C-alpha cells in the first residue's frame, strides 16, 4: 500500500521536474533539476527492487553527469543566448505533437506483449538463466551469478565495453581540459616568444 503511494508520489515529482526543465531558460537551474531528476529515478529503481540499476543511475546520472554538465557550463559561460528566438520556424507546432503522439502510441502498443513484472514464465527466466543458476558456481567459482556472467562467461565482451568507456572518458577529459598552458603573452621576454 505504502509502496504504491511512494511510487505515485515519486512519479508525480518526476513529471513536475521534467515539465520545469522544459520550461526553464536558466541553464544552471536546469542542471540542478537534472540532478533531482536522476535522484528521483534512482529512488524509483530502489522501490522497484533493482538496487544495482539504482546504483548506476545515482553514480552516473546524479554524480558524474552533473559534474560534466557544470564543467560544460563553465566553458560556455556568458555565451548563453536563447537561439530559438531567431531560429526559423520550418514547421507548424502541431506537427511534432502528432509525431510524438504516434511514437508514444506505438511504444505503448509494444508493451502489450511484454510479460508481467517478475513473471516466472517470461523468456528471460526460462531461456539461459536456468543454466547460469545451476552451473555458475561450479564452473567459475564466483558466488555472485551476475558477476560470473559479466566477468567470466562474457569476459571478452566486458573487456571491449571497458575499452569503449575508457576511450570515451579520455576523450571527454581532453575536451573539457584540465590545466592549460599559460598564454605566451604573459611570458617576460616577448621577443623570443614571437620569433618562436
Amino acid at each position, binding site marked *: 500500500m505504502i509502496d504504491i503511494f*511512494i511510487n505515485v508520489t515519486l512519479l508525480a515529482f518526476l513529471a513536475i521536474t521534467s515539465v520545469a526543465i522544459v520550461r526553464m531558460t536558466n541553464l544552471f*537551474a536546469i542542471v540542478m*533539476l537534472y*540532478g533531482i531528476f536522476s535522484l528521483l529515478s534512482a*529512488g524509483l529503481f530502489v522501490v522497484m527492487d533493482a538496487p544495482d540499476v539504482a546504483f548506476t543511475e*545515482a*553514480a552516473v546520472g546524479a554524480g558524474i553527469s552533473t559534474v560534466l554538465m*557544470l564543467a560544460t557550463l563553465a566553458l560556455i559561460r556568458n555565451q548563453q543566448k536563447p537561439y530559438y528566438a531567431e531560429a526559423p520556424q520550418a514547421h507548424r507546432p502541431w506537427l511534432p505533437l502528432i509525431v510524438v503522439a504516434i511514437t508514444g502510441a506505438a511504444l505503448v502498443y509494444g508493451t502489450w506483449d511484454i510479460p508481467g513484472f517478475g513473471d516466472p514464465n517470461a523468456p528471460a527466466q526460462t531461456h539461459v538463466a536456468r543454466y547460469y543458476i545451476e552451473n555458475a558456481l561450479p564452473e567459475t567459482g564466483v558466488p555472485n551469478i551476475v558477476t560470473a556472467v559479466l566477468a567470466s562467461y562474457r569476459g571478452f565482451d566486458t573487456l571491449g565495453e571497458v575499452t569503449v568507456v575508457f576511450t570515451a572518458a579520455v576523450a571527454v577529459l581532453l575536451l573539457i581540459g584540465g590545466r592549460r598552458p599559460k598564454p605566451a603573452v604573459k611570458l617576460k621576454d616577448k621577443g623570443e616568444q614571437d620569433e618562436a
Partner: protein
Amino acid sequence: MFIAASLAILITMGLALARALAGPTTYDRIAAVNMFGTKTVLLIAVLAFLSDRNDLLDIALVYALINFIGVVAALKLVTQGDFYSSDRDKREAEKEEPE
C-alpha cells in the same frame, strides 16, 4: 511508524522540489538539490527497514557520497568559474600581475 516516516520524507521532498523550482538565487537551488539528495538517502533507508533488506543501506551511503561530490562541484563552479584552478594558482596569478 515507518509509514508516517516515509510520508514525512515525501512531503519534505515536495517542499525541496518547490524551492528548487522557485528559488530566486543560485544558492537556493544548490541547497534544495542537496536537501533533495539527503531526503533520497533517508527514503531509501526507510524503505530498507520497511522491506527488511539491509543491503539497501549501502546504496544510501553511496548516495550520500555522490550528493556531496555534486554539491562541491556546483559550489566550485559558482565561486571560481571553473574546476581546475586551485587557490594556489589564483595566488600566483595575483603575484605575477603587478610586475
